[in-house]
């Protein structure tokens, strides 16, 4: 009896602490993006801004299959649109390119290069700021087969680890350190992080499926701070793991729900944002946390829902300006511009 009382008290105090994260007031521009009449966003999986404030949206638009080939081939399925900072539509990037199947994230590096991570094609594509193709990481399976193996679907190493190299199996996110080295979260099957140099040459991989230190259950998002520390959103384990630049475990941050996507702001004082996104089959949770890099929670804002200032499975956050965020939503098919008033 006494023991259960203690447990109840512990749970109570825990939930009180949880509730004490202060609410950050914010506004939302929900109709920021103006699309031409014949264009629509699907699931807004990825959103990112460049140094000019242009907004890039990587969205799922539906695929086509090819019948009558030696196998069933699937092509298309996602598109990348660029808007100016006022939301005016500028142009499409990578129209019809081979590696756009199932949009996962788009990020812009410090030189304004545009990087897409595609969970269907298993390919990361680097474009320059004008949209010219520069480089790929990984290879698109020749045919996306049932059971997610064979037909070129990569990563057939030790289960949950993948082979050494950039043969991804449903990658989720990309980040860079100050030297330009590349970090890719290779999530769904391999549960690992891959580090490559800026030319795309493989350096190392770490992680496997599990709940221990340095193990992952769906590393769904990744970010790197100015010191080169690597933050991994370990979604299934409901924690953010922090590694040094070589992949050595440093610490883990918790108490922010299941981190669906994370973002680290640039500048002298860096902040870490993490979204406890509602899964697509629920409308629970959904709040976004603002933290110091050491995990101290500064505040939270938002909740799951379909109205303005509510979120439908936030899949990516852009935080180039720490008080002006862009959130791409899966189930609400939109991008919200969020202005925080901390």
């Amino acid at each position, binding site marked *: 009896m006494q023991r259960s009382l203690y447990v109840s008290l512990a749970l109570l105090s825990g939930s009180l602490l949880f509730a004490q994260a202060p609410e950050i007031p914010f506004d939302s521009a929900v109709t920021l993006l103006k699309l031409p009449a014949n264009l629509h966003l699907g699931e807004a999986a990825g959103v990112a801004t460049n140094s000019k404030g242009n907004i890039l949206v990587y969205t799922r638009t539906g695929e086509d299959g090819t019948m009558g080939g030696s196998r069933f081939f699937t092509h298309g399925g996602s598109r990348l649109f660029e808007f100016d900072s006022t939301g005016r539509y500028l142009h499409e990037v990578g129209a019809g390119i081979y590696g756009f199947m199932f949009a996962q994230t788009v990020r812009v590096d410090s030189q304004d290069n545009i990087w897409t991570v595609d969970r269907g094609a298993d390919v990361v594509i680097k474009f320059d700021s004008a949209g010219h193709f520069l480089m790929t990481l990984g290879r698109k399976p020749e045919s996306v087969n049932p059971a997610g193996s064979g037909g070129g679907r990569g990563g057939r190493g030790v289960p949950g680890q993948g082979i050494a190299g950039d043969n991804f199996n449903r990658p989720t996110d990309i980040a860079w350190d100050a030297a330009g080295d590349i970090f890719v979260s290779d999530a769904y099957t391999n549960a690992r992080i891959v580090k490559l140099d800026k030319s795309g040459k493989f350096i190392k991989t770490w992680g496997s499926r599990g709940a221990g230190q340095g193990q992952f259950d769906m590393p769904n998002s990744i970010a790197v701070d100015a010191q080169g520390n690597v933050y991994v959103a370990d979604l299934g384990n409901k924690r953010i793991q922090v590694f040094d630049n070589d992949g050595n475990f440093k610490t883990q941050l918790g108490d922010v729900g299941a981190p669906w996507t994370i973002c680290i702001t640039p500048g002298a004082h860096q902040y870490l944002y993490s979204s406890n996104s509602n899964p697509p089959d629920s409308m629970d949770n959904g709040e976004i946390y603002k933290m110091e890099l050491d995990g101290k929670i500064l505040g939270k804002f938002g909740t799951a829902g*379909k109205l303005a200032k509510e979120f439908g499975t936030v899949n990516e956050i852009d935080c180039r300006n720490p008080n002006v965020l862009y959130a791409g939503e899966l189930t609400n098919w939109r991008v919200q511009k969020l202005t925080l008033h901390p």
Partner: protein
Amino acid sequence: MPLFAQTANLTPAALASRAKAQNVPEIPYESVPNLLKFPANLYLGEGIGVATNSKGHVFVYTRSQRTRLFEFDQKGNYLREIGEGLYGFVFAHAVRVDSQDNIWAVDEGANMIIKFNPEGRVVMTLGRRPEPTDALAASPPPGPAANPGKYIFDRPTDVGWDAAGNIFVSDGYGNSRVVKYDKNGRFIATVGSKGSEPGQFNLPHTLAVDAKGNVYVGDRSNRRIQVFDDDLTFKAIYDNVGAPWEVCVSPGPHQYLFSSNSFPDGNDSTLSTVTGEIYKMELDGTIVGKFGKAGKQLGEFSGLHEIDCRNPDELYISEIQLWRVQKINLHPNGK
């Protein structure tokens, strides 16, 4: 006419498909020829959904090479395509227009309900299109989930609203239930499971809501209409009008319930004499009359899939097998 003379040549399947109600008065009607004017190189596929808005514009949701949604004016002139290339357009099932002229598409392939504002932009979605790579990787075949949850559909079929704007979804081929959401898409209640008891469904294929919030569900394979109150509590069964492929409740002070005992999409010719008619009923199930029959001529119905009954004497109907929309003028007083 003696009963044996009517049934002598019917196969067992035809006998089973025939509505129980017999000797129902016929309502005179005609079909308006040359209704929809298409631009060159634009065609309807299966005429899955049809609906009108308050201006009389006609929306047609069709299965072509891609599922597409077209808008025509009240004279049948082509206006535009809505949702071109949309992620949620996979396999059309129904289109309805609410009291604010928002357009709602129900997509059986994407497992989604998509709400467009009158300008044709997406303003809300319900359900979620399955992720293709995950679907390909899944080992168990798709089917009804043990607990379908609050926000995921399995081949949904129709949508309706009560006066407060609450949303009702028939879900559908996979889940055998009806789900109620508030106007902002937040889950309120669900009713139903697979079966033939009252409150169970065997393919809830269509639904409509009256002014009091009663929900009429076309429980197609159970060959009955089930009525629920606004909280989804079971109220009544109407089982004498065949298999309700489509139900529609007209607006206005005196509401009517239309139900189609459609000629099935299996094209079994032995059923053509016992299906294809549409019943007009009072909301309590009393049959007022019937009209129509299976066939491919103008004024005949070839797998009727949706009815618009904004005006109870001017119906728009869409058909599966014959890729068209018809406008039907009824003359209930014999005029």
